Structures are given as C-alpha cells and as structure tokens.
C-alpha cells in the first residue's frame, strides 16, 4: 500500500541576520494510517516539520525536499489553490494552545461551519447540523450552547475540543497535532487524547503527533521519531522504546523522575557534539 505521506530529505531554513538557521535538516519518513509521534527537546524542529508538511512555513522560510507527497499528490509542486483545497479537508492540523489558535471574535460554531462551507457545498443549516454533530463527537456535553460561545468563554480543554472539531469536521485523511495538549491539565490532557485516539481509530486517519513529552508519546503512538537539532536521531516502534540505542533517546527516557522511583541525583543528559552533526 502506498504510504499516506512521504517525506524525503526535508529541510527548512530561515535566512536571518546572523546567517541561515537550519530548523529542519534533511529528515525522511513515511506515514501510513497510523499514529506517528515526533519528540524532541525545545527547538529541535518538531513544529517546523509539521508546518512544512502543511505548507505553512512562514516567509522567509525556505522548504526543500527530495520528495514530499501526500496520497500521491506532490506537495512541492502544489499551488495555492491546491493547498487551499487540501488543507482543512484532506489534511488538517491542531495547534498547541486553543487560547491563541481560535479567532477571538468569532463564535466557535462559526469557526467550525466556516471550514465546512469553505470546502463543501453545503447549506447553512446542513453545516450547522454537522458542526453540532462534530462537537458532540468530541464529547462536548452541550453542543448547542458551545456552538454560540466565543473562545474566551470556554475553558482550555473545551477550546481544544472545539479546535479538533473545527479541523476534523471535513474528515481529513491526515492530521498533524502539534503539542495539542501541552497547555492543558494532566487530567484534561487525557480526555483530549482519548478523543483523538477514538477519531483516528474510527476514521482511519494518519496522525502525526508532536510533543516534547516522550512518556506521553510512547503511551499514545505506534511509532516514534526522536528529533535532535533538526535531525531524526532515532526511529522506533513504541514497543521497542526500552531498547532505544541512541544516547539522546536513552537520556530522555531516563531523566524524568517517576513516581515511586528513587534516583538521587537524577541522571542527566550529556550532550555530544556529534549528535547534531
């Protein structure tokens, strides 16, 4: 079967005052209808990877790749119209913080129907119905009420659900979730993950899940890419995480304190120059 997403030697660079910043440096991976996690420390290029795939690299960023294709479509050659057709309907992205990623002056309902009406030729009433269904699907207890609320009127967890509803209402085949839960409380975090999990399972989407929390990723995804300084340093199935070989991955696994474990002092990561090379 052809992979849903193919990334070959993707790099993202930003020309700045102080020279080129290489945010992503030649990464390659394939994604099927599965959950792929990307982990790495802050600044390792996770978000840039996700955005490059969605064609959302802001200027003056330069995206280069040997191949970047989504279910057979060459994204490198896609024009604005192709992108517009694809984004939101076939591929979607969830951003980290609902507080900032929902338009503050539009009701939640409107933001969801907007996606729908933009991509599908539906009546207002139909759009509204589907939006309400979607809100229900993300386990919002009172969809009618939430439909008419503004983003500032809902809690973080609720906002994140609305965001998910907005992105998934057209039923995309690929979903990129960029730290979708890191702004949320642990307990809420799990609920949101549960929703994502169910949607992926039910609809057979491909999911790229970006996080800096290795523990979370390992418990949620099927496969993990470990990034360091813009490169993939290791790629593993979550089941094999225990046998990770790269010292960076090992370090990440070790250095978080866990309940009921007593290691004083905690092992720390000794960064090696050659990891970044």
């Amino acid at each position: 079967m052809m992979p849903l997403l193919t990334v070959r030697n993707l790099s993202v660079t930003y020309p700045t005052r102080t020279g080129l910043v290489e945010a992503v440096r030649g990464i390659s991976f394939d994604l099927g209808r599965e959950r792929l996690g990307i982990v790495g420390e802050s600044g390792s290029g996770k978000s840039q990877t996700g955005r490059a795939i969605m064609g959302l690299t802001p200027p003056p960023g330069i995206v280069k790749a040997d191949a970047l294709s989504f279910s057979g479509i060459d994204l490198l050659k896609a024009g604005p119209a192709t992108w517009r057709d694809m984004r939101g309907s076939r591929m979607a992205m969830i951003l980290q913080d609902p507080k900032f990623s929902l338009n503050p002056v539009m009701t939640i309902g409107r933001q969801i129907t907007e996606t729908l009406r933009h991509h599908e030729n539906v009546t207002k009433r139909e759009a509204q119905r589907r939006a309400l269904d979607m809100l229900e699907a993300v386990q919002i207890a009172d969809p009618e009420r939430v439909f008419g609320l503004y983003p500032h009127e809902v809690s973080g967890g609720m906002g994140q659900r609305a965001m998910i509803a907005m992105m998934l209402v057209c039923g995309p085949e690929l979903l990129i979730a960029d730290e979708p839960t890191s702004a949320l409380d642990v307990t809420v975090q799990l609920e949101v993950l549960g929703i994502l999990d169910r949607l992926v399972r039910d609809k057979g989407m491909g999911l790229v899940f970006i996080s800096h929390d290795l523990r979370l990723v390992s418990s949620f995804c099927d496969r993990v890419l470990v990034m360091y300084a813009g490169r993939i340093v290791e790629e593993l199935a979550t089941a094999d995480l225990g046998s990770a070989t790269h010292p960076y991955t090992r370090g990440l696994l070790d250095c978080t304190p866990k309940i009921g474990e007593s290691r004083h002092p905690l092992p720390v990561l000794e960064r090696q120059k050659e990891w970044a090379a």
Partner: protein
Amino acid sequence: MGGVTIRIENLSVTFDGFRALSSASISVDKGESFGLVGESGSGKSTLLRAVAGLAPVSGGTIEVNGEMLSGNRRSRAFRRAVQMVFQDPYASLHPRQTVDRQLLEPLAIHGIGDSDKRILKALDEVGLGPSFRFRYPHQLSGGQRQRVAIARALIVEPEILLLDEPTSALDASVQAEVLNLLEEVRSRHGLTYVMVSHDLGVVTHMCSRLAVMKSGEIVETLSSVDLAGSRMVSDYTRRLMVASKGFTREAV
C-alpha cells in the same frame, strides 16, 4: 531537623470577590521539603505568594520561623530568610539587567557588602562560571536562567525557599539538571523547601510530604511514600496519579 518552620492555618485569599484559596492549612518542618500539587488554577501559586506577602490574604494565619505574619508587611529578617523561585525563567529575570545587576540587587537592598565575592560564589554554586556574570537574560538558555534565579535566591543565604513550578517550563533533560541542583543546594545549606508542581513525579522525587489541592482547597496531605504506594484517601489524588502515568486507552 526539628520544629515547625511554616505553619499556615485556615488561610483564605480573595481576589476581587473571587476566592482563590479557602481555609488552607499546612505546616512545614524545618529542613523539610514540602510539595504542593494540583491542577491549574487550584491555588498552589496563590498559597506560596500569600506566604511571601504578594497576595491579598482575607483570613487565617501564617507563621514563619515563629513570627506571625500579618497583611503583606514582612520584616527585614523575613525578607532575607525567605526567597522564592518562579515558574517561568523567562519572566522572572529583569530583561534589561545583567546577571550581575540582578544578583547585586538583593545585596544592595539588604546592605550586604563584599558583593563581588558573593556574586562569584553564588554563580559558582549554581554551576555557572564567571563568564555568565555580565550576560543579559536573553543570552542565556532556560536552564541557565533558572540557575541564575536560584543564585539570586541563595545569595542572601535564606533558610526557606519557595519554589513555584521551578522546572515546568524546561525540557525534561534540563529539568533533571535543575532538580539535581536544587537538591544539592538544599542538602548543603539545610534549607526548607516548599515546592509547587503539577507533575507528581517531580514532587515525589523532591519532597517527603505533599498536599494535593483542588479549586482553592487542600484535598489531602500525605507523604510521598504513601502516594507511591497508592495509599491515598481522595479520588482526586488517585485520578491525578493515574493521569501522570501517561495515556492508556482504558483510562479514558
């Protein structure tokens, strides 16, 4: 070790009619490391800030080192004895001042001389060389900044350190370094810690006892050992505990 150093009874804090903390009571022994956990908005920071005199206390008592504190006035001795480290290393250092200036400030306020030596010593203690002395915060990484914040707290040789999520803004790998540093400093100086975190792992790692908070109230107080052994009373604590283990399909 001995004696209670912080005793808080029935403490309430109200912001413009909103009760952020209601009837919270804890006591912390000298030399102990005490943890506060709970979800966002549960009043953890508010509790710490109330001790520091940065929150509008509306009821209850706070006693530190045998001194009853009233209102937001604090004695000079208190100001030296109690220091705080904040969550966000990006926000807790003055962006327009060099590390040197920031470390000098407490010395100047308390009229402590010999500043050069003290600054270098404090930097050394948190594992930063003298080359960091004249840098600005933006020239430092998050972990380094948090070290500077810790150095700033230590430079006046306090007895009590209030730590408000000192590592939650840091990467896991850096977090470990900072946690190790905090432990090391505590054992070296015999400090008392009150540490806030939403990460149960971090709290149990650092603290012997902890209080679990929910919407401004203390749900329960228990030891880390009990927590690890799942010997908790409240459901809420259990939920937190499960959640902190990561995602499991069954859990939801």
